[in-house]
Structure formats: structure tokens, C-alpha cells
């Protein structure tokens, strides 16, 4: 019974990893590739780690497997977000069939910072005050 659960979990994890690798090869765009890599990779490795924890069935090994799983689940979205943000800043092009780009024109390229709504209001106020003075 335990062997069956281990085989099932590891097969599912391997299939997820294989689908992530195939998506990395087939996806047309950098941002779609980041999405596929993060979700598929962390889910697949997580399932394999759970299978290893069940196989060893030892307190130390279970703790180690869960620590690795926790660490991957924490760090994968962070690194994907950093890479996606930097790729958008360095003007890597989106797929031509992308329907909407919410960040278009909202990045200050010189400061490399996101231009929020508050900053736009401040600029408007400054313009108004300058007009009033002149």
C-alpha cells in the first residue's frame, strides 16, 4: 500500500516536471515560460519530495523533505517575480497575441520604479500649483 502511494506521487510529480519542461520549450513568450516553469516545477518537485518523505518514514527525513518543500514554495514565486519584473524593464517583448498589458506606460524607465496612482496625483497637484503661480 505504501509502495503504491509512493509510486503514484512520484509518477504525478515526474509528469508535472515533464510538462513544465515541455512548456518551457514550446511556449512563445518569456512571461508564459516563467509562469509554466514556476508552477509546474515547484508542484512536481514537491510531489517527489512528499514521496521521499513517505518512503523513508523517518522523523529526520520527513523534516528535511518538508523543509526543502517549504523553501522551494517560498523562493520560486519570489525569483519568478524578480525575473519577470526585470524582463519587463529590459523591454523583452510580449507575445504578439497578448490581449492586454496592464503595465504599459506605467513604469518610470529612468528610476526603474513602478509609477503608482499616488505618484500621478502628486504630479497633477504639482502641475496645478505651477499653473496657479504662473
Amino acid at each position, binding site marked *: 500500500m505504501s509502495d503504491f502511494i509512493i509510486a503514484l506521487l*512520484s*509518477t504525478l510529480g515526474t509528469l508535472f516536471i515533464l510538462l513544465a519542461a515541455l512548456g518551457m*520549450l514550446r511556449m512563445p513568450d*518569456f512571461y508564459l515560460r516563467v509562469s509554466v516553469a514556476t508552477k509546474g516545477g515547484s508542484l512536481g518537485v514537491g510531489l517527489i519530495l512528499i514521496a521521499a518523505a513517505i*518512503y523513508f518514514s523517518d522523523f529526520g527525513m520527513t523534516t*528535511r523533505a518538508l523543509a526543502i518543500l517549504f523553501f522551494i514554495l517560498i523562493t520560486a514565486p519570489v*525569483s519568478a517575480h*524578480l*525575473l519577470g519584473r526585470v524582463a519587463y*524593464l529590459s523591454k523583452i517583448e510580449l507575445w504578439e497575441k497578448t490581449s492586454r498589458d496592464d503595465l504599459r506606460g506605467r513604469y518610470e524607465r529612468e528610476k526603474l520604479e513602478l509609477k503608482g496612482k499616488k505618484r500621478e496625483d502628486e504630479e497633477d497637484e504639482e502641475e496645478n500649483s505651477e499653473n496657479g503661480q504662473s
Partner: protein
Amino acid sequence: MNITDFFLFGILPLLGLAVLLLFIRFLIGPSLADRVIALDLMITVGIGIIVVYSIINDQPTFMDIAMILALIAFLGTLSFSYYLKQKAREDE
């Protein structure tokens, strides 16, 4: 069929195939960010391979190496993104 044989002949070749596909993307990736994300996923699959290898050989010690590899992968992606950001700042 033994569970060890299943891991050795069923799981490990599929993970190797995944690494091969990722390596193709690493070679042909149009930009540097594509290569970085392919390398990141290759290290993540490498963690899975180390775990499967420790199950095959019944050596629990290899899991520590997987943990260290996860740490190094995160630090590598972080420093690569910092480098890309500096390069984007210089290009402006």
C-alpha cells in the same frame, strides 16, 4: 516489480528527458532571462533527481545536498536578476 526498479527505470529517465528539454531551451533561449529561468528550472529538476537517487540507493544523506542546492539556486537567480536590472539601468 520492486519500488527501487520502478524509480530506476521509470522515474529517472523521464526526469533526464525533462533536463534535456530544458537544456535545449537553455541553448536556444533568445534572451539572457530565458536562459536564467531555464537554469533555475534545471536546478529544481536536479533537486528532484537527487531525491530519487537517494531513494534508489537508500542513502538519506543526499537530501542535505538537495537542500543546499535549493539555497544556491535561489541565490543564483537573485544575483542574475540584480545583474539584469543593473544592465537595464545602464542601457537607459
